[in-house]
């Protein structure tokens, strides 16, 4: 399989296998004009299998989304065809409008202009809770 190398853009590597499309959708990569490649189930020495996304443009990447969906991911920043920075993801402390509260009693269900804010309450368990009603986020 041949995928053109990137001149200026990003390689999102080490995405947990199967999470590539979720990252693609949450980062709204479908709205881009540039080349975007998703590689699913690539062989990985560390992970066994992984997903990779290549984006041939310098866009604003929401690292919080990436960190939330796949904290194992790394982001290679490519400039003039060369790797100039490698970023590791961590679980973000706060997520705004990434996940939505499913508690029918939560104020966000009736006041839909309110931002859906979730805060990290347990890093080991990857647990987020709604900032308003403290309901646990379901992935």
């Amino acid at each position, binding site marked *: 399989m041949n995928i053109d190398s990137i001149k200026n853009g990003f390689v999102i590597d080490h995405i947990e296998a199967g999470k590539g499309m979720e990252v693609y959708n949450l980062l709204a990569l479908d709205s881009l004009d540039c080349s975007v490649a998703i590689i699913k189930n690539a062989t990985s020495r560390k992970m066994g299998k992984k997903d990779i996304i290549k984006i041939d443009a310098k866009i604003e990447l929401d690292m919080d989304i990436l960190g939330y969906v796949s904290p194992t991911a790394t982001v290679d920043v490519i400039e003039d065809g060369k790797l100039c920075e490698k970023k590791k993801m961590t679980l973000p402390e706060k997520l705004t409008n990434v996940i939505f509260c499913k508690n029918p009693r939560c104020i966000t269900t009736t*006041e839909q202009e309110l931002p859906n804010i979730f805060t990290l309450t347990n890093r080991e368990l990857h647990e987020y809770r709604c*900032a308003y009603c403290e309901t646990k986020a379901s992935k």
Partner: protein
Amino acid sequence: MRSVIDIKDLSTKELEEIIAVAEDIIENPEKYAHKCDGKKLATLFFEPSTRTRLSFEAAMYELGGHVLSMSDATSSSAAKGESVADTAKTVSCYADIIAMRHPKEGAPLVAAMNASVPVINAGDGGHNHPTQTLADLLTIHREKGRFEGLTVGLCGDLKFGRTVHSLINALIRYKGIKFVLISPDELKVPSYVKNEIKECGLEYIQTKDLEEYMPQLDILYMTRVQRERFFNEEDYLRLKDSYILTPEKLANAKEDLSIMHPLPRVNEISVSVDDDKRACYFKQVLNGKYMRMALILKLLEVK
């Protein structure tokens, strides 16, 4: 400018300061009769309530302040579709402090994020009710003289009972507290609340049997199974009479047990228990007013 949305918004030191002020109000009410002269409290109640709203209003009047009251959501701008944020911004122009009850969980937090005056959560759905917890804490303090080392039985609806979650959250700050969590399977304490107990190195027992554990209890905190928290009437009817406290069930209880209830009760404590010297639930109502007075003074920074 501070708001109190959750009991966790108050440190242990602050809780103890509020208790000390409330005790002083009880001893010297005249000293506090004009502390809030010229100040206005807005009570915004989007859900029916008798005692909490009247308690806030009585608290403000006894501090010499005034009250602006909204007790029926259907006659307010909320019925026209106004957001909680806009209501909070608007009422901030009229009042020095807001007490809000709302059926939606998190609504008082939204109000606090938008108001320019302190907001007190007077109950948001099944979520938080910090001033009830303040009433509970003062009652325990006055009845027992301590928090450490008590065995506290919580009985009834421990799933949706917001007062239970807030009380657990306040009591886990003290050493040697042991919880006995008594409920039907469907109304058990949520796991995150149990995790908080465990994280503090405290013990809890989960059971369906009130009478088995009765002899161990220093405090018995009864709660009502609340119709308004159920989406399904059948579930409510099936569970509402799970526990009814009667004088017979108290036969093996300690002589100095304190029986508490956030009220209103339906039938979970028989009226024949009211004359028992261990019944504290009406004292709790009075203590709630004193703690609300102390909290208003703190948030308005009145010395």
